């Protein structure tokens, strides 16, 4: 009896609370706070480094006159980054399209197994991937034996980076292509073929043009990922002997791309004997160039995919027919699976084999556990902040009722994702050491903020996607039945978009756990050692490949368990 009363009182209280929170000024304040946070602690710090052009112009000039060769170093590093990213994107497209077709348009057994296989490289932090890929393909000057099954072929930095980024990006490409291909009605293809078009002609003239947005999304994701990665690049280049930090001369050595250069200079700027002000200017310059060029490249990609005329005017009926049947499609499918297996899957997991053949070396278990603990702490806090801010932000974008601002936010939210995370880290640390607006309690705090900045878009993207697909009439119906806005959200909208929220949270969390660049750029290699940073340290400082492989394997198992757990929860939630 008394319990029942308590229940009613509680419910009444929570209703009054919801009603209070649903009041217009309260909601407006809430939106305002979220927007303020975004501009002040995400967007502004991300782009803060651009102001260095004005505030630090003298430092940059000083650097360039003292060390004129720096400009060449930066130029070739950024060139290497872009060469890699563009080649990887094109190759991923060539093999991603048939694979997406295969996954979406064919019914076969073991489809979910294939899906899991394609996604599996995502469970490996890129620091581990770089090392694994380089062990498989590359020459390994620091190893006194050739691991069983490794090819030992590649000694070029460009080539190893391309091979590395197949493994880091291909899952993203296939995922985004197949997500959008699913939305394209197969009847278009049937209509084309009923009109006499061969499969190839139908694909070329009808499906691909309808597919532009999918290609743009996939290409954007892959470019951003390939430009942004640091951990994988550093470990891959180190393993083949193309990354070195010469603390005696204060020089970075080897075949460095943009992010590797940032990592190297950041290390040198902390070395006592080197002039840290020079490196600050240099780092800012690299970060500025990478941010500006990344934004420009993405605009170009967007324009290219939207403008390019894929249905070329000419048709070659006999040739296209011949290519559509018989041996040609089989060769295409064969090549696709060859790519998936030999250029993505085996290189990704080669390091597990290395554990079996390498000679065991001691590993500091305590440091490893601490690093994993740090990684999960940062990822957990960042994901929690992502959710608290990302969901209201998504609602604001889709339902906020301010069309212009909503649309602008929709674009702006992506900026921290597109900007290479190492550059973002440089920008953030510059911001927090120079500004006086926000008190900075600790380095841990800045690292977490950096992680929020580049994982935040995952939550917003997923939730806006789900909200856009949701009929507002459902919520209106609930409102018409007397529910307050917040109540109708909790009772009607939330249960439906729950799956997308979880998907966004999983992406944000795993991205944060696997990320190296921003952490290194903010905190260096010593102050905050997350698991990927620990792996980089093992390879870079000690050339302790065995310990690195072991640490990566442990991290893979922990992340895989976490992912499976989340997937289980997601399925339950549905």
């Amino acid at each position, binding site marked *: 009896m008394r319990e029942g009363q308590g229940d009613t009182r509680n419910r009444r209280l929570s209703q009054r609370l919801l009603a209070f929170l649903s009041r217009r000024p309260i909601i407006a304040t809430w939106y305002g706070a979220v927007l303020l946070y975004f501009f002040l602690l995400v967007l502004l710090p991300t782009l803060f480094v651009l102001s260095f052009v004005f505030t630090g112009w003298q430092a940059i000039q000083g650097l360039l006159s003292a060390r004129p060769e720096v400009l060449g170093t930066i130029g070739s590093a950024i060139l290497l980054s872009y060469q890699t990213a563009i080649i990887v994107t094109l190759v991923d497209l060539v093999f991603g399209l048939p694979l997406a077709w295969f996954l979406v348009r064919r019914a076969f057994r073991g489809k979910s197994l294939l899906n899991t296989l394609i996604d599996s490289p995502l469970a490996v932090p890129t620091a581990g991937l770089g090392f694994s890929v380089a062990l498989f393909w590359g020459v390994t000057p620091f190893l006194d034996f050739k691991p069983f099954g490794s090819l030992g072929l590649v000694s070029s930095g460009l080539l190893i980076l391309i091979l590395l980024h197949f493994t880091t990006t291909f899952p993203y490409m296939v995922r985004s292509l197949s997500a959008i291909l699913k939305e394209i009605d197969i009847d278009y293809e049937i*209509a*084309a073929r009923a009109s006499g*078009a061969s499969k190839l002609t139908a694909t070329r003239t009808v499906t691909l043009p309808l597919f532009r947005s999918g290609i743009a999304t996939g290409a954007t994701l892959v470019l951003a990922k390939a430009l942004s990665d640091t951990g994988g690049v550093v470990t891959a280049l180190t393993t083949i002997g193309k990354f070195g930090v010469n603390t005696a001369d204060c020089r970075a050595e080897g075949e460095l791309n943009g992010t590797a250069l940032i990592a190297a200079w950041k290390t040198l700027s902390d070395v006592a004997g080197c002039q840290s002000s020079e490196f600050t200017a240099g780092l800012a310059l690299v970060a500025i160039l990478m941010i500006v060029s990344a934004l420009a490249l993405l605009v170009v990609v967007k324009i290219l995919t939207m403008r390019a005329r894929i249905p070329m005017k000419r048709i070659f009926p006999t040739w296209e027919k011949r290519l559509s049947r018989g041996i040609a499609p089989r060769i295409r499918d064969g090549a696709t699976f060859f790519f998936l297996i030999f250029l993505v899957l085996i290189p990704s997991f080669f390091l597990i084999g290395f554990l079996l053949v390498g000679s065991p070396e001691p590993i500091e278990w305590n440091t490893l556990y601490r690093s994993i603990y740090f990684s999960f702490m940062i990822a957990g806090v960042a994901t929690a902040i992502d959710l608290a801010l990302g969901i209201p932000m998504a609602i604001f974008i889709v339902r906020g009722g301010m069309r212009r601002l909503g649309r602008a936010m929709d674009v702006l939210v992506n900026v921290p994702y597109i900007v290479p995370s190492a550059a973002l880290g440089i920008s953030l640390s510059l911001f927090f050491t120079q500004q006086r607006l926000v008190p900075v309690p600790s380095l841990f705090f800045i690292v977490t903020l950096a992680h929020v900045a580049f994982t935040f878009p995952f939550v917003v993207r997923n939730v806006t996607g789900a909200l856009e697909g949701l009929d507002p009439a459902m919520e209106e119906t609930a409102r018409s039945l007397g529910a307050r806005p917040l109540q109708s959200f909790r009772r009607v909208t939330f249960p439906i978009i729950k799956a997308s929220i979880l998907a966004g949270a999983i992406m944000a969390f795993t991205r944060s756990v696997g990320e190296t660049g921003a952490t290194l750029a903010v905190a260096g290699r010593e102050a905050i050692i997350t698991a990927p940073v620990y792996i980089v340290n093992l390879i870079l400082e000690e050339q302790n490949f065995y310990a690195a492989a072991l640490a990566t394997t442990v991290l893979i198992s922990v992340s895989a368990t976490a992912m499976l757990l989340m997937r289980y929860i997601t399925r339950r939630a549905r």
Partner: protein
Amino acid sequence: MPLVELRRVTKRFGPIVAVEDVDLRVDDGEYVTVLGPSGCGKTTLIKMIAGIWAPTEGEVLVDGRDVVPVLLEDRDLGYVFQNIVLFPHLSVWKNATYSPWVRGLGEEEVSSIGKEVLRLVDLLDQSRFFPRELSGGAQQKAALARALANRAQLLILDEPLSALDSRVRLELRYQLRALVKDLGLTAIHVTHDQEEALSVADRVVVMRKGRIVEEGSPRELYRSPAHIFTSNFVGENNFLEGSIAKRADEWALVALRNQQYLWVPDGRHSVGRAVVLAWRPEYLDLRKGYSPNGLPGTVEGERFLGSELRYIVRLATEERVSVDVPLTHERFKVGEDTTVEFDYEKMLIYPRPYEGLEEALKLE
């Protein structure tokens, strides 16, 4: 020789049997409609004719040739979709000339075919528009033009009018038939709308639950449907259940429920046999007072149908019937007693289906 022939065709999707053991012949120049409730397997049937799906069992012959191994693009037919499926990124002109273009015909030929088919559907002056800029009716016309540009003898239409407004649907219905007949084409037209099926077809094929129930000319199907399902699905019907109590020459006395009796013309069913009598609403009449070939009942409702009035009457047998009468007919009030008169000439009589009447009439 028939143009299209299906022999014992079955299609399964896992455990679902979408089409079961279907035999069908369509002659050259014939306009055939396939009529059935949605989900009965109509689309699956024509997709097998078009070569979009291969049958699980059975043969598909076109011009006497087995076409199952022939790919869709080599089938030589025009296909029109229920959901229209114009290519959204191409103009009406590009859509209409898609077929000659992908077949690699010369520019002049492509353009003359485009003009010809767009003139046929009366869209020549809108050829520069994009599909989304057209009305629903115009979109489906453009899709028809695209199918015609294939220059095929066989036209397959999957519910071509279902996505359109009712007025447009009526107009296009007759244009479609006229076009097919003028060009001397063969058409297989799928629909769930019985009025549409009857009004355009030379022959109607009725499907239910993946099987063909019966086929015949629209007139035959409406006047004397052989299967009790058809009698209700093609046009409406009223049913009275009973059994033969007595016979005299070509007449039978049917014992209905609640000790009601009716003499009806029937020479086929023996005494004791359970039967169902069926009349369409327009074959019944209402009058005040007793009638020797009628049954007493009570008026339960009245509906205005435009050109006619429909009375819903509960008979003494506890069965409900609909009676359509002209507006000029003498009026009845709800609750009033009446007598329903039956036109014996127009009566249909069926043996009572073993699965029960309700089950036999169910759509799926």
